[in-house]
């Protein structure tokens, strides 16, 4: 294949579009980590469930896929509340490894429940803009990718407003800084944890809906995005929102460029090589503060 300036530009834009989805997923993971100091390795599985929920809702009710995303966000947020209540709350504050073990158990449960409920065939959400694309002279880009970028930016702006302009956001930031002091100031931290987990899950579900419109997915599709979201927040630094945004874009572009220049099988390997290189030089990530 000829690599022209046009293909490089196209790959860059694709990288940004894919990066936006990862950015949304990573921000959800990051808010959960920031407030609860909890590592949820099953976060990508919430993306997969969000994609299935969006697909099932739009097939069953005939709703527009982008409308279905909002219903699936609410459903997955509810699922998140149940999961937080039944599992993570019991191990919070015990050894850190227990959280990793619980999330591994959740991965097994989510993936196999999805397999039993929805079968093993790959699905794709039918978008209202299927087949439409902007034709620019150098390259063309589908409406869906542009809409994905707009949706992600809108959700992140709403998220920023929630965190920095509302009382709940203030309580979340206080809990994130020091939960004991926050609870002494009259904040019900268990309620904040519940809201945070629901919020993070809803963001994963939104990312899932967008993912399902652009890519095909099945019950195993959550595994790679989990790892990628982790790579991104580690690249950007745990708990740093700015880091997640920069990390998401960098990762998306690196992945798409590796696919263009080296071939598909190298996509994840190059991204991990980047991650490992960053961590060897800066063990706390690009924007990370000193770890615990």
């Amino acid at each position, binding site marked *: 294949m000829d690599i022209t300036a046009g293909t490089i530009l196209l790959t860059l834009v694709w990288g940004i579009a894919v990066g936006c989805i990862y950015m949304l997923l990573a921000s959800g993971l990051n808010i959960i980590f920031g407030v609860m100091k909890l590592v949820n390795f099953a976060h990508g599985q919430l993306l997969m469930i969000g994609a299935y929920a969006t697909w099932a809702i739009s097939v069953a009710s005939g709703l527009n896929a982008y409308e279905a995303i909002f219903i699936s966000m609410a459903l997955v947020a509810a699922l998140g509340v149940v999961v937080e209540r039944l599992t993570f709350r019991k191990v919070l504050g015990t*050894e850190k490894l*227990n959280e990793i*073990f619980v999330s591994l158990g959740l991965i097994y*449960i989510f993936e196999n429940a999805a*397999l039993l409920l929805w079968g*093993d065939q790959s699905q794709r959400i039918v978008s209202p803009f299927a087949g439409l694309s902007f034709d620019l002279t150098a390259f063309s880009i589908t409406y869906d990718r542009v809409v994905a970028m707009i949706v992600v930016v809108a959700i992140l702006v709403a998220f920023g407003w929630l965190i920095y302009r509302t009382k709940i956001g203030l309580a979340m930031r206080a809990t994130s800084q020091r939960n004991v002091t926050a609870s002494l100031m009259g904040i019900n931290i268990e309620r904040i944890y519940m809201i945070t987990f629901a919020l993070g899950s809803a963001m994963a579900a939104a990312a899932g809906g967008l993912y399902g419109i652009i890519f095909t997915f099945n019950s195993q599709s959550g595994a790679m995005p989990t*790892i990628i979201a982790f790579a991104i927040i580690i690249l950007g630094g745990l708990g740093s929102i700015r880091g997640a945004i920069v990390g998401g874009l960098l990762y998306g572009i690196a992945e798409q460029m590796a696919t263009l220049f080296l071939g598909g099988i190298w996509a994840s390997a190059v991204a991990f090589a980047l991650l490992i290189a960053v961590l060897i030089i800066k063990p706390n990530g690009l924007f990370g503060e000193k770890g615990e």
Partner: protein
Amino acid sequence: MPSKQKVATFLRSKGFQILLISFAILALIPVLIRDSFFLFVFTLIFIFAIYAASWNFLSNSGQGSLGHAAFLGIGGFASAIIGSRLSVAIIITLKVDTMPIGALSVLLQIMVLLLGGLLSAGIGLLIGLACVRLKAWYLAMVTFGFSVIINTLSSQFDSFTNGIYGFAPAIFVPSGFPFYILVISFAVLSIGIMHAVMKSRMGLAFRAIHGNEAEAKMIGINTPKYKLIAFTISTFFAGIAGGLYVYFIRFVDNSIFSPANSFLPLIMSVIGGLGTVSGPVIGSIFLTSVGQILTTQPVTQGLSNTLGPFFPKVGYVGPPLTYLFIGVILIAIVVFSPKGLESLFRKFYKYLVS
């Protein structure tokens, strides 16, 4: 060299007697229960017991790995490739049709497995160099990343590894009882050695690092050095387990590097009891037998007949239900009995005695 007296004390020591007795008991089991499926499951249990024990050993030194399948795979591929080249060379020099099987071939098998373990440990040492500075989820991510990278490299250099379509390794030890004896010899020795290391001065350093790395450093332990040693030893045994696995199922391809294989030793160690000697073995017995029994033909058929109508989208409900069950068990263990099945057995035993 150890003196004669030292060897004599070792032969009379309690540890050596436990090794001999456990070996004898394990060797007798298939003689008493003559059943090929039982033998198959038991062989698999002890291969995974070595693998889980190697992960558990790493966790005892305060480290962890979400990419141990990389070392399982390196050990498996290395021993399979070396073994195949070796058997071709032997067949050519002896001018025979197939590889002769006898005492010599068993020795060759052991040598090939050790070579696989050594190569795995060598690469483990290099990867460990990148990992010793990292902690918790940073370490988890980097080890996971290495397993993805090694999988990609294996696909890239397919002409050398043949990993995409996979291949069958040469046969040195016939399957069935002889292979079982080979596996339990390796299992008893590997677990014994890892336990002995944990009991030694070096093991004390590992446990100090596990307890609190900063304090360990303060009292003068060279923490990077000991963490690197633990990583290398763990990857050596993971490589051995990989070699045994490949020679046992007589097939190897890139799917050996899968994340499921990376999570397996972790789940076994946690279910059995993290940080104990018997934990990984108990976890392996539990998980391997549950996995193998629930996915056999009659059980799958029965499950499909009874539960199939509830899940019309899948043709087979056995395997997904098995994994769902494992997930629930894992969470239940972590939430209700964080020390694993081993501590439950211990409590039960105390209750019986009192």
